[in-house]
């Protein structure tokens, strides 16, 4: 990949840092009036999700990272790998547990996810912002209680546990915001 100079760093750019692909979050130009110019850069490591800060001398370069976000359909898991397919090319990719990470609890077969490919292999998976999942287990609601209150835990078909209002019952389908892990509504 091409070398990219600090002056071209901007939010969203994908670069290699210490052997890992990273996305640039922020790039601040720091220059004392009479002194050396630096760039203070915040990056997210795309493998670990960790945010790091690093300073460069202005004009330093980093190698670009071959990273692309692709919308893919989740197919199935064989226990070791989670398999995804690009809907246009039918190309399939297997992601390991590291790549799937926390997304695993929201993955429902046929759902469209964003798969981050680094050199052609999945390194991260983002579930859709909202998923619709069936409740497999929750305590029966108390009669007369229709809303409000503290709610109760409910286990979903993927294994995720979310807090739901007391009136929601086992077998119902609910909509969940995967970014916060919170219940949004029932789905009829």
């Amino acid at each position, binding site marked *: 990949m091409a070398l990219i100079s600090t*002056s071209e760093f901007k939010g969203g750019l994908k670069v290699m840092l210490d052997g890992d692909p990273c996305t640039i979050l922020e790039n*601040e*130009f*720091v*220059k*004392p*009036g*009479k*002194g*050396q*110019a*630096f760039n*203070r850069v915040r990056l997210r490591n795309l493998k670990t999700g960790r945010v790091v*800060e*690093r*300073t*460069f*001398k*202005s004009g330093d370069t980093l190698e670009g990272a071959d990273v692309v976000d692709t919308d893919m359909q989740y197919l199935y898991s064989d226990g070791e790998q989670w398999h995804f397919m690009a809907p246009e090319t039918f190309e399939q990719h297997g992601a390991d547990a590291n790549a799937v990470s926390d997304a695993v609890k929201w993955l429902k077969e046929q759902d469209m996810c964003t798969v981050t490919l680094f050199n052609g292999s999945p390194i991260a998976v983002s579930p859709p912002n909202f998923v619709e999942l069936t409740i497999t287990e929750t305590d029966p609601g108390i009669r007369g209680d229709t809303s409000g209150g503290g709610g109760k835990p409910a286990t979903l078909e993927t294994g995720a546990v979310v807090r739901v209002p007391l009136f929601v019952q086992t077998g119902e389908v609910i909509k969940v915001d995967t970014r916060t892990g919170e219940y949004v509504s029932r789905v009829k």
Partner: protein
Amino acid sequence: MLRAIRAFFADREVLEVETPLLAARSATEPHLVPFETLFRPAGGGAGLQQRLFLQTSPEFAMKRLLASGLGSIYQICKAFRNEERGRLHNPEFTLLEWYRVGFSLNELIRETESLLRGLLTPSRPTIRSFCCDYRSLFEQEVGTDPINADFPALARAAERLGYPEAAVLCAEARPVWLDFLFSQGVQPKLADWDLVFVTDFPACLPSLARNHPDNPAIVERVEVFIDGIELGNGFHELADPVEQARRFEEDMAARRALGLHEPEKDVRLLAALAAGLPDCSGIAIGLDRLLMGILGASHIEDVLAFPVERA
């Protein structure tokens, strides 16, 4: 703001001047990159073309006026620095620069504070300020001595502050180390103060300041910060043409080491110094950043009609 500045200097009988923005020589400082252009006399051949530079500051020209005996002078003008763009930088910006004949650096600091307080008062109920020498401030915030600490000690200080990469970036260049540690370790701590004046800079960051008469380790230079942002640089101005020529040579050596082109030194400035620069102190204030401070803006484009991308 401009009207208040002009009234301030009119009250003190400081003369407003104008000097060329386009000139034959540029600053020699290794970290300043000028814009360059060609002057073509009408109908002239290539041999008559002259290389000209947009000025990175009006400093040299104003010193020539001082040497000619004009007395205390000020100027509000544009300055141009290539390769500088960011939240606090636009390659074209506005400077207020003034020189006070017969002023010590301390007198100039008091005058600067009085000007800035006057300009900030309408937008700030209270203005907290303090003045501190570079070495004490650096030792307090970075935990090491900027003048005597060796490079491994500076690297350890950087690592404590969370910058392990500094050792590679700064290597064995003390000015770079000090710029790095000051801008990353000290400046953020100054953000709680409206105005901070940092004095007595280490001799390795001399710019155009006089050497301190009693202490060879420091120079008579001040930097002023608003909310932790660098606003300006002031000096008890170097008047010795021999020392000035030596600083030019040092700048050239630094430029050679960095593989940068070596500008011709300004012989007209040297001639003016040889003719006699009166004892004076001078300071330059970035007016765009001052306006940011007055308005509470966080980006320089908030105070520019058209930043360079849209100019």
